[in-house]
Every structure is written in C-alpha cells, then in structure tokens.
C-alpha cells in the first residue's frame, strides 16, 4: 500500500510539472482552452463517480451542482471581488451543502426515485437563478477577466493550472475514498444496502460523506468556469450536456475504480474536442449519446473493465 501511495504521489507531481512545462512551452492559447474543457470534464466525472459509481446512487443533476458553484463564484466576485482560490472554496462549500441535502434524500429515496429527485433539484436551482436579477437572471452575466495572471504568460494559462490542480486533488480524494475503509463501506452499500446496514456499516454516514464530497467537487469545478467563458447564462451553466457527460464518462471509463472516470473523461472529452473542431459541435453531442448507449448495453464495466478482462484472459492462457 505504501509504495502504491508513493507511486500516486510521484505520478501526480509528474502530471503537475508537465502542466507547468506545457504553459512554458506552448504559445497557442487554443491548446489551453481545449485542455481546460477536458480537465473540467475529468473533475465532473470523478465527482459523479464518488456517489454514482461507488455507492450506486445515480445523480442526474450534476449540472445543478456545477452551476451553483459557478454562480456562487459570480455573486461573490461581484459583491466582494474575492480572489479565485476563495471563490473555489466558497463554491465547494455551497455545492457541498447541496450535496449533503441530496444525501439526506437517500434516506427515503432509492434507485430511480433518487435519480429523478436530483434532476428536479437542478431544475429548481435553475429557476431560482433565472429569477435572481443580481447575477443577471435569464439574460446572463458578463465577467471581466482579471488583469493579474501571476507569473503565467496569459490568464488562460493560469486557469489551466487551476483546473489541473483541482483535477489532481479530485483524483487524490477519489482514490483515498475508494482504497480506504470508507471505500469498502461504499462498495458494500452499492452491492446490498440492507445487508451492509445489518453488518454494522454506517450506511447513512457514508452516503452523506460521499454525496457531500461529490457536490463540493462539482462546485469547485464550476467556480473557475465563469472566468473561463467570461459570459454565463442559466441555459449554458445548467446545460444538460454537463449532466450527461458526468454520467457518460464514468460509465464509458468504468465505474468501479477511481481511475475509470479519469480515463473516460480523457477519452470522451478528448474525442469531443477533436470532433467539435473537425466535424461539428452537434456531431460531438451525438457521439457521446451513442457511446453511452453502446457501452451500457455492450460493455457495462467500461474501458477499465474491458482491459481487466483482457488481462485475465492473457493470464489464463
């Protein structure tokens, strides 16, 4: 276990340094915009998987948690002009509380009902934001890009490092949750909640923890988003695409491990960006839908599952 932890730490450090090197070497801002979108997808997928993959409670309202993070960031930036790290923290707290509320719903709602309730939560939030004039209401809000971009060449390079840090942090949290005792408890809930409860697994506590972490992570992913796009309206922040991506990526990558959503996020997110540029943006939506349906019906364990099966076959041969 110890050596594995060290491997993970070294791996994270290498990824972080590679990102830094990337900002130093690459000049074309397009690369940073693209990487930002993919990394944001990785964070959303990782967050979704903490509740959806580890415990089996499917969240359809990911866009709601994300957008609440984005709007907390807009409101606090407008009111107090706080710097980005504080905005991310505040957004994580707010969306985390929302996640806690969703976790409380699991007390009474199982399976499908929980999924529909999270969808309802997102729509209620969207309606509130549409009627909230301070952050622009239905017509949206413009955000000025701050002049200050630390020691990076441009603001987008700094945002890229911010989202890369959030992604590495999310991966670390997800990995901790899945490999620790908590992860075993979560897996027990996924397999049979009543049996887990009978065996002394504190199911409610674990469900609340994973729902809160999921919400906080999605909020953190949403906080830098307004500065990335500079214009946010409810229709884009609560976009169903965000919700379907958050579900599709872990399912395509594999929901059983912390690595699955990261692989799914990189593969699907990368494919989406390539298709958007080379074919059309509608086509990229269609591809996600088709890939999701395809993987659910044909390879329910995702890419990681396919790879594990392949390894098993080779070993037995």
């Amino acid at each position, binding site marked *: 276990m110890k050596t594995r932890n060290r491997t993970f730490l070294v791996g994270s450090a290498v990824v972080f340094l590679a990102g830094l090197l990337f900002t130093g070497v690459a000049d074309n801002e397009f690369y940073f915009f693209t990487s930002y979108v993919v990394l944001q997808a990785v964070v959303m997928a990782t967050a979704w998987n903490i509740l959806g993959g580890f415990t089996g409670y499917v969240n359809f309202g990911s866009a709601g948690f994300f957008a609440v993070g984005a709007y907390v960031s807009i409101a606090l930036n407008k009111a107090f002009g706080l710097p980005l790290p504080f905005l991310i923290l505040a957004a994580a707290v707010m969306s985390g509380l929302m996640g806690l509320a969703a976790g409380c719903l699991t007390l*009474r709602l199982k399976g499908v009902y929980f999924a529909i309730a999270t*969808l*309802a*939560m997102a*729509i*209620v939030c969207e309606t509130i934001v549409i009627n909230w004039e301070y952050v622009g209401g239905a017509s949206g809000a413009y955000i000025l890009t701050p002049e200050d971009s630390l020691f990076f060449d441009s603001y987008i390079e700094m945002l890229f490092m911010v989202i890369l840090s959030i992604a590495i942090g999310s991966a670390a949290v997800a990995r901790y949750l899945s490999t620790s005792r908590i992860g075993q408890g979560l897996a027990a809930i996924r397999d049979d909640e009543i049996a887990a409860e009978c065996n002394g697994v504190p199911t409610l506590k674990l469900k609340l923890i994973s729902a809160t972490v999921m919400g906080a992570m999605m909020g953190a992913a949403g906080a830098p988003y307004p500065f990335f796009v500079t214009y946010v309206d409810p229709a884009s922040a609560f976009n169903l695409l965000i919700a379907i991506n958050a579900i599709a990526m872990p399912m395509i990558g594999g929901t059983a491990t912390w690595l699955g959503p990261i692989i799914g996020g990189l593969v699907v997110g990368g494919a989406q960006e390539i298709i958007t540029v080379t074919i059309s943006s*509608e086509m990229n*939506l*269609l591809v996600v839908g088709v890939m999701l349906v395809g993987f*659910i019906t044909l390879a329910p364990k995702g890419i990681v599952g396919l790879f594990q099966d392949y390894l098993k076959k080779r070993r037995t041969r």
Partner: protein
Amino acid sequence: MVLELFLNAVVAGILLGGFYAAVALGLSITFGQLDIVNIAHPAFVIVGSYTAYIANENFGIDPILAGVLFAPVFFAAGMLIYRFYYVSFERTEQESIRGLAFFFGIMFIIEVVLIMVYGVDYRLVEAEYIGKTVHLAFFDIPVRMLVPFLMASAMTLAVYLYLSRTFIGRAILAVAQDRLALQLMGADPVKIKQLAMGIAVATAAVAGALLIVIGPVEPSVGRLYIGRVFAIVILGGMGSIGGTFSAALMIGIAESLIATFYGPSWAPAVGFTILLLTLALRPQGLFGRA
C-alpha cells in the same frame, strides 16, 4: 377583477392539465405499471410533434389527425424498443439504473438528431382552429387549448377503458402486480409488456401532435416535461390512469396560477417542486396505496 383573473387562470390550468395528462399517460404505463423508467418519453413526444409538423407542412394534413395516423408506427417502434430493452437489461436483471442511463442516452440522441436535421428553430403547424377563441360568460378559451384538452381526455378515457375492460388490458395491469402469477395463468409477461410499451409510445404520437397545436416546438422543449410528467405519474400513484389524470389537472392549475400571479418564469419549477415534496414526504403519491 382579481376573481375573474383567478377563474380564467383556473380554466386555463384545467385545459393545460388535460394536455399534460396526454403526455404523462405513456409514462404512467411504462414507469407506473411496467417498471421501465422511460425518461426518454418526453423525447418521443417531441418526435410526435415533428411527425405532425412534417405531415402538416408537406401534405397539409391536420396535425392531430396526423398524430393518430402515425400512432401505429409509434406502437411498432415502442414494441421494438422494449424488445431491445428486454434483451439488454431486463433479462439480466440489471434494469433499473443501467436502463435509466440507457433511456437518458436515447433521449439525448433523439434531441441531437432532431437538432441536426431541423435546427433549433421553433416549428409550428397550421390548422383552422389555431388562433380562434371561444368567449363564454367572462371566460376566454383559446381553441388551440380546448381541442388538445378534449383529445387528451378522450385518449385517457380510451386507455382507461382498454386497461380495465379488455382481457389484454387486464393482463397488463396484472403484469404490474405479479409477474409470476400471470405466468402461471399461461400468459407470457414479456409479450404483454411489449404490447403495453407499444401502447405507451403510441400515446406519444398523439401527445406530440397536441403539443405542437398548443404552441411552437423546438427539439429541447422535451426536457421541461421530464420533471412535470414524473411529478404527475408519482403524484398520481404510479400507474393509476385516473390518478394520473387528476394529478395532471392539479399541476396544470398550479402552474397556471403561478404563471398568472408571479410570472411565467417561475412556472417550470412548480412541477419539480411538487415532485421533490412528494418524493420527500409521500413517495406513494396522493392517490396511491399507503
């Protein structure tokens, strides 16, 4: 004056609610009775709207007539979808969550294909009764609301009678209650469910035609209906046709009142808020057994 406004809002709500019943009817059968979480049902309704639009635009057929004419095609499609669903998920007993994600993906594919073919412009149909208004005492009743209401009520009644009076209809109700017992009676639950799913999707053809008569339609309109129809079905007690109709009227009236007195931008949240409250406080619905 306020009373007049209030009464007009209630009447508008009843008409709207009747139409909601038509949209929720199919889901009441699939979700309420067959345990198939067909979250793509509103997307099927939008497909119904576009078929009515195509028939109206190219051949000048009345949109509602087009909806009825295309219902058999939708029926066949529904049977096919159930076949696929059964083979992929139900037989392996992994239906609920994976099935849900499956229909979520289907919904997305339908929406994107419609956007790719027809764009995001609003489409509308032409018929003689659209645009006229009936004045009755101090009520102003737009005919484009009245016709869908009558049609929806007729369809709900027809489905109700079919389910409660015919042999196959009762078999559908039975499959919801006890699959094994039905099997012991010599009926094939898979065939019965396939038939029921066909009926459910067929209602989407008519509901879609009604939707485009009420107002212009674009591909993502369906999303707004997800919460609304699930709220209606759950509130109506999962699969009870009468309950579904009553719940649809309630939500229609609530939305209409909120839109009249607080502004239309709050109306979409009504269905979802009622849904959240129902799920949190009374998951068996208002008309369900405790």
